[in-house]
């Protein structure tokens, strides 16, 4: 387990530099809005979701709109429902405590790194946790430094740090490619995500692109099985039970 955690932590270091830089920007904004470093740390450790934290800090003005804030976080983080679901095979046969403990530290970055490694046969829940601990530490350090000293990098764009996320996720996406069967679902996902990002607020584009793309092979499978299932229809369970009831 420990060796797996170490490997997961190391695998997440490449994206760590930009996580720290953006953390420092959040820390600076939080200080301007009057959050103490303790409150910021509590947020980092308990929420641990970058884009949601940015929105919370943006909405941070007394009296705090607690309900609106919670709803905004819920909507922005809706993608975690899908991300959690996609981790199902990795957690096969693990206890509920194990799942409940590790799922807290799942962010976009360590999830993506883990799924790519899992495809290659080299990832466990320990790998996922190690990445989560690594990112949460870097994120917390970045935000606290930003809170105390101001942003580490004033113009992250100048050093292409804004592109670091795109670059990492692009590289990881390549490793998820399974072959020609991915062409249709991936094309659907890309078109839906770009369109949704343009016309819908928040992070809906991830949910819409993810579900829309994955529905393509699912619908194909349903149509394939329908042609064979049609012949067996009279023997389905529901019909049998209805027939037994009428007897």
């Amino acid at each position: 387990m420990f060796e797996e955690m170490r490997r997961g932590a190391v695998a997440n270091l490449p994206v760590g530099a930009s996580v720290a830089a953006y953390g420092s920007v959040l820390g600076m904004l939080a200080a301007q809005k009057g959050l103490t470093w303790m409150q910021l740390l509590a947020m980092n450790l308990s929420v641990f979701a970058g884009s949601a934290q940015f929105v919370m800090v943006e909405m941070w003005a007394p009296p705090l709109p607690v309900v609106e804030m919670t709803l905004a976080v819920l909507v922005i983080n809706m993608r975690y429902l899908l991300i959690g679901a996609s981790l199902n095979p990795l957690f096969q046969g693990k206890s509920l405590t194990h799942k409940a403990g590790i799922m807290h530290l799942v962010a976009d970055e360590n999830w993506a790194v883990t799924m790519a490694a899992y495809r290659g046969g080299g990832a466990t829940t320990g790998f996922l946790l190690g990445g989560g601990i690594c990112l949460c530490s870097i994120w917390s350090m970045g935000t606290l430094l930003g809170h105390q000293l101001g942003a580490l990098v004033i113009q992250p764009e100048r050093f292409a740090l804004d592109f670091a996320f795109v670059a990492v996720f692009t590289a990881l996406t390549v490793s998820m490619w399974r072959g020609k069967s991915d062409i249709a679902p991936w094309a659907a996902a890309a078109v839906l995500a770009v369109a949704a990002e343009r016309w819908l607020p928040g992070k809906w584009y991830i949910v819409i692109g993810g579900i829309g793309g994955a529905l393509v092979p699912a619908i194909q499978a349903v149509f394939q099985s329908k042609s064979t299932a049609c012949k067996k229809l009279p023997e389905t369970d529901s019909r049998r039970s209805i027939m037994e009831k009428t007897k």
Partner: protein
Amino acid sequence: MTHVSATDLSIAMAIAGAALATYSLRLGGLLLAERLPKNGGFKRFMETLPGTILLSLVAPGIFSAGMLGGAAALATALCAWKTKNVLLAMIAGMAIVATGRLLL
């Protein structure tokens, strides 16, 4: 005094609410997936999902980054494909964008 404690309470509630919402989604997704059927359309859906989520995360970013971003993303993808090295691919992509912005 009571005003201060009311503020403190609302801060605690805001952070706790966000934490609870986020954690419920994370764990809820995992636990929900166990209850889904493991055959046919659902199986195909779940197998395809990681790739389509990742692509959806990144596609709008590439699209809005313009020509330079598109070229850099393509270089990153090719580098990742050939070397299987995420760090190297990331550095290649960032170098192209940084140089491009310096020159353009």
